[in-house]
């Protein structure tokens, strides 16, 4: 049991900036840290898994082929086709990759010894949101034509004299709030989850090192950490699902026929 005199409590944003690995121990250098290594690990796992699972597909699937097909089937049937319609099959590969990437990255938040999710740095959700943004806009432009798509999405059915009031709102809500909210939703959930786990874990140690009689309270704190880890697992899966479902919903909105 750690009885260090000073436990780093309360945890702060600085705890999310991990020490640099290459170059070792450099200050203010964040190019290659544990976070970077985790993202590379995710990419490697996904690429290797899906490639080897489908290398020699059998009619009666092997275990990894069954797993890969289940994941793809789940995303294709329940997200792509449910949200976009039969045309959604074209988007299923992107949505599956998105879902798996976010899920695996989020999952590192509760794996022992890793316990930080790259998605708790705004950069990764931001890039994913930008990619989804480009996907739904280009889907709309490709389907409707450039001018017609923007006319359809920016001009609501309203009498002409109210339009100047409504068009800024439409523009803001369709082209600015969407990517922003996608990124922030994922980032905030992962950041807050990690922060909660830090508070309860470090709080237990801090209370213990302040006064040994607080041991029962420390134990309660650590039990809360365990309970919160289960909640965090729920949040991990849910956030990956929500990101993917919302992307599919935006694509559906872009492909929908006019009103």
């Amino acid at each position: 049991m750690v009885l260090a005199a000073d436990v780093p409590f309360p945890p702060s944003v600085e705890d999310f900036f991990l020490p640099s690995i290459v170059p070792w121990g450099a200050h203010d250098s964040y190019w290659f840290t544990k976070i970077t290594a985790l993202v590379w690990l995710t990419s490697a796992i996904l690429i290797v898994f899906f490639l080897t699972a489908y290398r020699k597909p059998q009619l009666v699937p092997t275990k990894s082929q069954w797993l890969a097909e289940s994941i793809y089937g789940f995303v294709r049937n329940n997200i792509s086709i449910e949200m976009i319609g039969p045309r959604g099959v074209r988007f299923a590969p992107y949505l599956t990759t998105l879902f798996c990437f976010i899920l695996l990255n989020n999952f590192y938040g509760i794996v022992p010894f890793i316990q930080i999710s790259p998605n708790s740095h705004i950069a990764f959700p931001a890039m994913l949101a930008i990619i989804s943004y480009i996907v739904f806009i280009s889907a709309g432009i490709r389907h409707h034509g450039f001018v017609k798509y923007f006319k359809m999405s920016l001009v609501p059915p309203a009498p002409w004299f109210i339009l100047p009031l409504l068009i800024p709102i439409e523009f803001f809500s369709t082209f600015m709030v969407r990517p922003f909210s996608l990124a922030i939703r994922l980032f905030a959930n992962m950041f807050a989850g990690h922060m909660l786990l830090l508070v309860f874990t470090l709080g237990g140690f801090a209370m213990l090192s302040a006064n040994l009689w607080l041991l029962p309270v420390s134990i309660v704190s650590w039990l809360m950490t365990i309970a919160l880890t289960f909640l965090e697992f729920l949040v991990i899966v849910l956030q990956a699902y929500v990101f993917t479902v919302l992307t599919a919903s935006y694509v559906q909105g872009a492909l929908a026929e006019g009103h």
Partner: protein
Amino acid sequence: MTGQQPPDKPTGGDGPDPPDMGMGMTAVTYLLAGMLVWGGIGWLVDHWVGTRGIFAGIGAVVGIGSGVYLIVRRLGA
């Protein structure tokens, strides 16, 4: 889940449009966006004219009203 059949018309073609699941989120977004956009424009006018906050307030109210109108028009009362 591999037991699930792929849909009947896998490529191209337009089935019946799936129900719009984003409706609730869209409604909230319109309200918020209306308030923010026109409140922001009102705040800019305030800044330019020098008053303390009246235009931001008017802008926010106008924004909420327009948001409600948009919801009624786009999502069908």
